[in-house]
């Protein structure tokens, strides 16, 4: 038998096993509970599609001459377009509230929150090379510190924001200490556990955190002391415009647009800090640490301090994002800080290309935005989403933007594609 045919048959068989229960059976709620409806036609269609899809792929591969390099066009395009893509994205981000409706702004806030989380985690994973699977812990610490400070002491968002960052940084150091000696898989397991511990503590320390009921009535941020309320009057956004003689109509979009600019500002702050840090000794030490810890030691780098600062600074931005999350939703509960959040943020960083700022932003747009765009496809949303992720990893195994930009450039940029450079260990 033709090996291609054989391969395709095996694929079809695997598909049959996988899709048998997933597509072949449908649950329907009837008068006496759930009952199953078999859907043999849909199953057959899926299996046939896999068979011919695999066959086509194999034939196409067979016809390519041996040793053909994987297509690098996409990478080149992104790289070349990077110079104008960044300003274009930034412009779009700034004008978005003016050109889009409420839904667009809300989606923008969501995407930007993940962009910020991605950039924050990028410091730990992308630059310092420390695989952190519990990043959501710092997001939770930030959210809860703001919520509790606001509730207990009546402090406002802007007072609590730096405090939330500080608390998260403290927890970052606390996580950092026990894991100093760990690398790779072991580090990942401990950070994963750390994320879960924080969530479970929040869930069980009900007298402080409200347990599963969470905390509600978290104050909204103010614009130089002006509140966004429908009531208007003194001390409100609309009231201010009235007092200076330009009365404007109140609309909830004003508040949402303001929130949008807050998260945009926070995200850009994260990016700016990261870009600055990469150019100083500390940032370079992070990257060197990712490449080779032994060499770092032999060059007199204090590995302990370097790792702890990476954890602390990464955690700070997680905490800031958490405080923003709390103020935007006005309600938080441990349910918002599950492992899946860590996984999504990590996926954004990895898909974007470890260490790449632009890549992380693009990946956040693709992951979070794409997830929303596929909403109309209802049942097929997850399927398409998964397919998109697989495609990215097949076409761009090192992320959308895989090249590392040197932190010091001397005149002309002469560099060799990252594809040809061995991956860092660890």
């Amino acid at each position: 038998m033709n090996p291609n045919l054989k391969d395709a048959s095996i694929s079809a068989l695997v598909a049959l096993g996988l899709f048998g229960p997933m597509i072949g059976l449908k649950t329907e709620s009837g008068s006496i509970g759930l009952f199953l409806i078999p859907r043999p036609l849909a199953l057959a269609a899926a299996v046939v599609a896999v068979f011919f899809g695999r066959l086509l792929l194999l034939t196409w591969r067979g016809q390519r001459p041996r040793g053909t390099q994987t297509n690098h066009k996409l990478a080149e395009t992104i790289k070349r377009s990077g110079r104008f893509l960044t300003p274009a994205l930034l412009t779009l981000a700034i004008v978005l509230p003016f050109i889009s409706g409420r839904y667009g702004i809300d989606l923008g806030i969501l995407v930007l929150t993940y962009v910020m989380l991605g950039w924050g985690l990028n410091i730990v994973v992308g630059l310092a090379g420390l695989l952190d699977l519990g990043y959501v812990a710092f997001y939770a610490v930030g959210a809860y510190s703001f919520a509790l400070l606001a509730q207990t002491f009546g402090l406002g968002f802007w007072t609590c924001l730096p405090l939330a960052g500080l608390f998260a940084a403290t927890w970052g150091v606390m996580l950092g200490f026990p894991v100093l000696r760990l690398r790779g898989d072991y580090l990942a397991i401990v950070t994963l556990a750390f994320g879960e511990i924080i969530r479970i503590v929040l869930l069980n320390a009900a007298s402080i955190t409200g347990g599963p009921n969470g905390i509600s009535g978290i104050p909204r941020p103010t614009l130089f002391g002006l509140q966004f309320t429908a009531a208007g009057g003194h001390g409100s956004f609309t009231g201010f415009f009235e007092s200076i003689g330009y009365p404007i109509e109140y609309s909830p979009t004003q508040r949402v647009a303001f929130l949008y600019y807050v998260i945009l500002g926070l995200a850009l702050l994260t990016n700016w800090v990261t870009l600055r840090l990469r150019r100083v000794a500390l940032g370079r030490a992070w990257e060197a640490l990712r490449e080779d810890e032994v060499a770092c030691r032999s060059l007199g780098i204090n590995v302990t301090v370097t790792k702890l600062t990476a954890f602390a600074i990464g955690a700070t931005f997680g905490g800031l994002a958490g405080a923003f999350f709390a103020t935007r939703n006005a309600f938080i509960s441990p349910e918002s800080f599950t492992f899946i959040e860590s996984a999504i943020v990590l996926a954004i960083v990895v898909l974007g290309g470890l260490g790449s700022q632009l890549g992380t932003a693009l990946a956040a747009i693709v992951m979070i935005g794409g997830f929303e765009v596929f909403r109309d496809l209802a049942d097929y949303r997850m399927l398409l989403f998964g397919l998109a992720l697989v495609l990215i990893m097949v076409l761009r195994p090192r992320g959308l933007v895989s090249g590392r930009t040197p932190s010091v450039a001397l005149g002309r940029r002469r560099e060799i594609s990252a594809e040809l450079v061995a991956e860092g260990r660890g």
Partner: protein
Amino acid sequence: MAPLLKLTGVTAFYGAIQALKGVDLEVASGEIVTLIGANGAGKSTLMMTICGSPHARHGQIIYDGRDITALPTHEIMHMGLAQSPEGRRIFGRMTVHENLLMGAQVVGMRNYAATRDLVFGLFPRLKERLTQRGGTLSGGEQQMLAIGRALMSQPRLLLLDEPSLGLAPLVVRQIFGAIRQLNRETGLTVLLVEQNAFQALRLAHRGYVLVNGAVTMAGPGAELLARPEIRAAYLEGGH
């Protein structure tokens, strides 16, 4: 004059395995001293023990009149010691320039330009490859970068761990030439760990032979080179 580096009765362990069994060794200021021995004799361990990773369990390591036996690695490396580790260990995804900057980290930007010019004088290839990523360099160039990176911290004592590893004879000669030049022109003290005993002994003023974690022979390089047991073990049938 007191030696720049003095080891007395140094032992070191990896877990339960004793890698060094009481090593005595001295390096005087301005000397090139080589440490030769077979695979697994403990040469690299000795190098790492001087740097405090692992720490010596017994014995004493004195550098420049100070006891550094129990100091953490990063503090030792701030005292004018620099190491070019075994297997080069350059930062592959960072450029040559960034690698050199990493080497200068302990001294900051003091005399940066002058030191860099010294390194470029020794290894002009590095200047040509300045914007290239470390991982794309050839083996010899990577070794030059590893030595150059160590030199960026303006050390008084340079520890070189197997600089000839996996390199073509021509490149080895070039690198050893650079070490000799450096020692002559700047008076840099060098402790060189080598498997390539012939080249190392010809370069060094003095040599030590390490067997199973203990020093079995010591003496001037030329003298060791002439000893029949050295010839038999490391030069003729040794490799």
